[in-house]
């Protein structure tokens, strides 16, 4: 039952430790899903607000299993020629032009149209062979010899039709190319899809995936994350900072600060040699945490309350 490709992902505690040493603090739930993904050979659909480490999870996973990461960034208008494969049209044309001269040799001595045709038929598949096939991320991930990690980022940004295209890859780990036939995965890659929930994904796609929803972390977890990412920041400062961020998230904001913003803020505080989280310091650096002017104004209005919350 246990997958032999990714021995590093055989045990939940081991996963948590391995991820932690790679700089990613994960909850038991995340570790469980990763373990299941490896064992059941199913893709994982990760949902959650921006900046909670969805993409990071896939990257870390690639690091832990020590396999290449193939990343496909989705956007509106993404189609199979960008995601799956494309024929190298220019190369095909160039070769036909170059080989024009050879045509005489091939057809030399052929009698009549029929014989010429049957001779040409022997070469007809040359131009639609793997030499002329440009692999795009999805195909690349399937071709990888020892498996790998495939990250399909922000699938909700892609068109609805693109989801259908993914189904074959995700459920059977294969791609059908009309001219070549079906290409199967050498060894199945670990697949992660991320979604920011800007639209509903199709049931067909959801059905094929394991689901992982990553919410904003708890105070303790976030403090651990900040501590591991920004070890130079004093422990007391980290705690204050994380409590402050949690207080800010409870405000009605256009965009609540995510983990990545907390980490950025922690880094800038280290650069500023800050020793204590006080009013002026927060006011000066709030733009690291909040990305909209309105949000900053709201937060500044509530500053005393937020600082009180930070002090615990």
């Amino acid at each position, binding site marked *: *039952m246990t997958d032999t490709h990714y021995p590093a992902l055989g045990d*939940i505690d081991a996963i948590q430790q391995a991820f932690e040493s790679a700089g990613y603090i994960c909850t*038991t*739930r995340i570790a*469980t*899903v990763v*373990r*299941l993904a490896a*064992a*059941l050979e*199913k893709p*994982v659909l990760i*949902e959650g607000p921006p900046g909670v480490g969805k993409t990071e999870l896939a990257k870390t996973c690639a690091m832990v299993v020590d396999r290449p990461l193939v990343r496909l960034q989705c956007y*509106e*208008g993404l*189609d199979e020629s960008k995601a799956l494969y494309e024929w190298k*049209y*220019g190369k095909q*044309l160039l070769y036909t*032009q170059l080989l024009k001269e050879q045509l005489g040799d091939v057809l030399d001595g052929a009698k009549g149209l029929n014989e010429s045709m049957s001779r040409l038929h022997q070469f007809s598949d040359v131009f639609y062979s793997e030499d002329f096939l440009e692999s795009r991320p999805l195909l690349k991930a399937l071709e990888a010899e020892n498996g790998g990690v495939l990250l399909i980022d922000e699938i909700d940004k892609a*068109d*609805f*039709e693109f989801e259908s295209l993914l189904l074959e890859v995700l459920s059977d780990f294969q791609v059908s190319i009309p001219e070549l036939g079906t290409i199967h995965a050498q060894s199945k890659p670990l697949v992660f899809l991320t979604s920011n*929930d800007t*639209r*509903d994904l199709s*049931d067909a796609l*959801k*059905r094929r995936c*394991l*689901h*992982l*929803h990553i919410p904003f972390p708890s105070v303790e977890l976030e403090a651990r994350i900040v501590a591991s990412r920004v070890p130079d920041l004093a422990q007391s400062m980290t705690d204050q900072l994380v409590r402050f961020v949690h207080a800010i998230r409870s405000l009605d904001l256009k965009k609540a600060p995510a983990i990545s913003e907390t980490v950025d803020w922690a880094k800038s505080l280290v650069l500023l040699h800050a020793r204590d989280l006080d009013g002026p310091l927060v006011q000066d650096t709030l733009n690291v945490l909040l990305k909209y002017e309105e949000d900053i104004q709201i937060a500044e209005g509530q500053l005393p309350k937020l600082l009180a919350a930070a002090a615990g």
Partner: protein
Amino acid sequence: MAGVRDRATPAATSSDQLLAFVQYLRGKKIPVSPADTLDAIEVAELMGYENRSLLKNGLAAALAKSRHELTVFEAAFDDYFQPTPERPAANAKNHSDEADALPPPGTPEQAGLAEANDDLLEGLRGNALFDALESQDESALSVAIETAAVEAKVEEISLFTQRGQYVRKILDALGDEALREAAIEFEQSEPAAFEAVQALREQLRERVRDRVERAYLIHAAAATEDLLDESLSKLKLGNIDHSQMARLKRLMDRMARKLAARHGRRRRRYRRGKLHVGETVRRAISTDGIPFHPRWRKVERKRPQIMAICDVSGSVAAYAKFLLMFLYALQDVLPRTRSFAFSAALGEVSDLFASLPVEQAIELVNLKYGGATDYGRALQDFSELALAEVNRATTVIILGDARNNQADLRVDLLAELKARSKKVIWLNPESTRLWGTGDSEMLVVKRHCHVAKECNNLNQLERIIDKLLSDRR
């Protein structure tokens, strides 16, 4: 052992229980397909049943497919797999090989009674239900009750008063009959045995009652909501009470979301169209006629536009409000909606609606454009204001009762509108039977519109807008 259920029973029962849990989830409106169920079984095998939170996390990954479903799932899991209090201690002992020979657990008094009547009860042994009750076999009991509940179709419960009926049905399906007969038999002759059997039956009844009440809470509570929603969407919008506005708003948002999801998808298309032969050949000239740089046509996107002209006078105002609310709830799918309001004079109110909540905007509009209805003037104003921008991609929706106080309605302007636009839709809150009576000009108006429809409740409104969106391409 913090097991899901303490049990010594092997995997067969576990997966049975998992199946029952899947049933339970479906009752909670989480759609679980057979394939999901297979996944869940595989997950459970991997995770094992010993560690509760491990199993929960694993099953969540396979069964809950959105954040909403995740919350429902977590609550359902905790409900369903609650660790059974007290009983397991006695239970564990009982699962030893001589389980049948040991006196049944439970209260000491009960145990004593049962011991005394061991011989009498011997006749009942072998009856699966009795054995399960006597040995307090949690998993066997819950599976049996769950199966019986499914058989009795307990999920169809819709009224509080039906509980007794369903308890009876489930008990029958469980095979309570045999126990009852035994009890009747013992009643005269063997009071102690009678007591023992009755106590077990009462326990069973208690469990079944719990199950039925749970089913009522899950299914009937939802059914009641559905019923309210349904009746509300059939109610004339003009008659809707203020107290129901919140529910109506929610209902409307849901309808709008549904429509947006259904039609928003189709709007997106691949940008690349067919091969542009002419341009490709022209470009190939520089490469000796070899088409190195193919050129593709772009797929043009139509930019549909809706112009809504609403009568906001008196009785029609309520309907105008709902139409506008609906149109603005669909802003994602219909980004360029423009709205105009009139009763005497007409003015554009798009900005008002874009910036203010609908209720406030309507009040302001009433204040600004209120007065005696004059369709003639309104159409004239509209022609001056926006007729130049009406083209073949424009759908004009006019909402009004077409009662013009005997004045000229300026049908000529309406005819011109019809000629220029893609569609003119006239929505009339009055019933079709009243069209043309009194000062209603509806029969004349009807001839100069592409579509004229009665529209006075949410269902009709939804259907009209749905049609509008599907015709849009």
